[in-house]
């Protein structure tokens, strides 16, 4: 029972590790690594599902009767492409973030954003004379 579902245990372990990295790590690259792990676990899940006991690769041949189910393989081929596109886009976003924020740490970026947010709010909230605005910036 335990060994029969070996693939599924691996899937769940990978999935949880991936999700944990996405949530717990503040480094944007590590988050992408986690996300990729998470997606890969789902790919393994689909591929395991396609396995038919005693079946071979789904290539038509005369003396073979039992084949693995090819449909999930094809689905995952699509999903892998989607996954690559996502990773590429995420990495390019990180490059741009590094360029403009000078950091790839979530905390750091959030801190910079909060400062900008507070500044724009304080400028708005009171129709303050210009003097006080400059004081804050200084």
């Amino acid at each position, binding site marked *: 029972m335990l060994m029969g579902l070996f693939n599924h245990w691996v899937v769940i372990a990978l999935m949880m590790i991936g999700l944990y990295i996405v949530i717990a790590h503040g480094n944007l690259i590590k988050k992408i690594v986690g996300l990729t792990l998470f997606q890969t676990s789902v790919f393994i899940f689909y591929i395991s599902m396609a396995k038919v006991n005693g079946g071979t690769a789904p290539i038509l041949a005369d003396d073979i009767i039992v084949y693995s189910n090819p449909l999930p393989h094809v689905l995952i081929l699509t999903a892998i492409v989607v996954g690559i596109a996502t990773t590429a886009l995420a990495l390019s976003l990180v490059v741009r973030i590094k360029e403009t*924020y000078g950091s790839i740490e979530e905390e750091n970026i959030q801190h910079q954003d909060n400062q900008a947010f507070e500044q*724009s709010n304080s400028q708005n909230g009171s*129709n303050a004379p210009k003097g006080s605005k400059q004081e804050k910036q200084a």
Partner: protein
Amino acid sequence: MIAHLPGLQVHLPVLQVIVPLMAAPICLFLKRAHLVWLFALITSGLTFVISVLLLQQVLTSGVISYELGGWQAPWGIEYRIDKLNAFVLLIITSISTVVLFAAQTSIEKEIPKSKHTFFYILYLLSLTGMLGIVATGDAFNVFVFLEISSLSAYALIAMGKDRRALWAAYQYLIMGTIGATFILIGIGLMYQMTGTLNMADLSKRLPEVAQTRTVFTAFAFVIVGVCLKLALFPLHLWLPNAYAYAPSIVTTFFAATATKVAIYLLIRFTFTIFGLSFSFTTIPLQTLFMALGLAGIFIASTSAIYQNNIKLLFAYSSIAQIGYMIVGFSISSVTGLTATLLHMFNHALMKSAIFLALGAVMYRLGNVQLSSFHGLGRQMPLTMAAIVIGGLSLIGVPLTVGFVSKWYLLLALLEQGWWPVAVLILLGSVLAVIYVWRLVEVAYFKEPLSDQVPVKEAPMFFIIPIWTLIIANIYFGIDTRLSVEVAQAAAMSLFGVTP
């Protein structure tokens, strides 16, 4: 014109998706930005014509089933258009076309010239994705189109000129990918149990295995995934920043359509695929969604009151409006679902009008901070009047579309005898009054600041689409025949009731 070509008529369901998909790469060959804009506008207009024809066809002759490549339905991919699909397709294509009209003027100020062509390519791809999600009758196809629309959405949002757009796009990417992967897991589990991916086939086979843990798990994954996409409170965290810092055109397009597509998916999965009795009887979805919907209305509306960035304010208001749709959905009666579908249509009209008007303000002023609105009521009368009418519609004042959908929502609640919820809904509208009033007060009752440069009214390319949407807001608020009839028919067919 298309209607007169009998050969094409049959292929309308797939043309709906293929036309923008094929048009996207062609943009690369058109050198001049204005030419690309015109081409994208025509493409979007064409999808609008197709969706009108589809709706007509569905209303007269019933469900259309289209076999892609001629492969028979449960094995091949099927595109299936019923009243619900046709209704949502119409919402997406009409808003997309009206919004594109203002696109070139708006992006000239917000996006560097070298990226204009890419903007339209991504826009068309995103449109393709949304139309594909709605048109397809195949569960895995939903995932593929979802990713097409999402990936282009992340890139579009990152085009915003504020650097926070990048960070918002990144956060949206992480959340969106987790959501989509959850849906993928759910679909996989369903396939494992039934051996099929076709939605109609799934709905027949799932009841046989409904009482298994696998199907429960599949349901949970799909629902959480879809709710991430539709920004249901408390899974809404990606939405406000993404909408606030994206280019104005992108915000307008997504605020009006993206969440509607996700709500369509929610309805499709719960009502058609898993079936009404499983979704609402076996699983306590009703209580859960009612509570989350109401919490969303109140918390998001309250957050909206405290925002000084007006785009951010209306982004929070969008989350609150999603709450209304979810409340209508959770009633799980024909009237309740009618209210949800109506509000999808109506909210698309009002939010696109408001965000487009904010785009016009952005065009003239370069920002949408509350302080910039001082005295704007006199300087940009047409734009501000549009925001006010849109705001009234958001509140639900009679003679606007907002009133119609809230009226149906209240009717549905009273039908069930849930008057405390009805009272809460009305209280939620009061919060909307407050946040809309803050803007009106500054724009109409405050003098312009001394250091403020006077501005002119927005260019015609803004005024025409904004007022088209505003007139639609009022028109469908008075003459409700079209919207209510279609929404009601769609709701009835989902419940399996014949009129």
